[in-house]
């Protein structure tokens, strides 16, 4: 049986429902764990991959029965090292395997917070193992059918973004999944 196509309003609602828990999770985690006040700005849609170049990307995949997506914490080196320095109580100026672990853990904590808030909105999200990518001015592009929402944050140390991209699960995704399971 074909699944009914979601309306634009429903798609928008999915995006909003997914985004607010992450805004809350990011602000709460940074405040408690890094002692940084992050003020969320006005969310907007990412129009192309040229928008936003970052040094450090920490991402996790989310999936539920209705939606697939990626949540990526997008930072400059400067602000990431400030977060880590404040979290660990010592000056961090370069990426090491230990600091990579710290980035993963930060994402884990953020995701777990968001997961709880998503569950309250009846969205059961499962995440993958977080990934981290770093380099100079990394361009972030998603191979997704859905739109990407940029959630901007301001802190006294500078700005950073969280990007959330989602796509609704279609009938063909369900068929592929069932075929694979058989």
């Amino acid at each position: 049986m074909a699944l009914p196509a979601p309306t634009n309003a429903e798609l928008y609602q999915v995006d909003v429902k997914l985004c607010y828990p992450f805004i809350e999770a990011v602000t709460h985690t940074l405040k408690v764990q890094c002692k940084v006040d992050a003020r969320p700005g006005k969310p907007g849609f990412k129009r192309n991959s040229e928008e936003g170049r970052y040094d450090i990307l920490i991402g996790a995949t989310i999936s539920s029965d209705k939606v697939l997506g990626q949540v990526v914490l997008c930072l400059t080196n400067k602000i990431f090292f400030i977060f880590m320095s404040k979290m660990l109580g010592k000056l961090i100026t370069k990426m090491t395997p230990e600091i990579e672990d710290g980035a993963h853990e930060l994402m884990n904590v953020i995701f777990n917070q968001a997961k709880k808030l998503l569950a309250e909105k009846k969205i059961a999200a499962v995440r993958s193992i977080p990934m981290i990518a770093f380099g100079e001015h990394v361009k972030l592009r998603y191979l997704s059918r859905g739109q990407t929402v940029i959630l901007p944050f301001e802190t006294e140390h500078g700005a950073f973004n969280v990007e959330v991209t989602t796509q609704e699960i279609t009938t063909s995704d369900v068929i592929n999944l069932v075929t694979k399971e058989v």
Partner: protein
Amino acid sequence: MFPKDSSILIVEDMKTTRLYVKQSLRTLGFKTFAEAADGAEAWDKINLMAGGGTPFQLVISDWNMPKMTGFELLKKVRGMPKIAGTPFLLLTAEAEKHQVVQAIQAKVSDYLIKPFSDEQLEEKIKNIWNSIQKKAA
């Protein structure tokens, strides 16, 4: 409150989180720490210290770890009469909060949900100390 020279074992697979906990404990005035990256390593260290007559006075352990989880470690500690009374603080992610009931049944001293601040850690450690004192009275 626990004496500041108490020996504390921090069990967590993420090194930065171990550093974070250690940093928080230092802020609270504690100085003596040991670390383990999973429950199995922690179990070896707990036995070694107990065997040497200097058991840890507090174990702070993450729940979700490879090899042996914090919950499994808790059950092992509670199952060995010599060290069964070791104060045990379990760190857990928000998503694992529902599992805390099991930990309470297994006689965890207290639990703390990540992310947590120095103040929240201090409060939990104080609570554990106070409950030990009440039992002893």
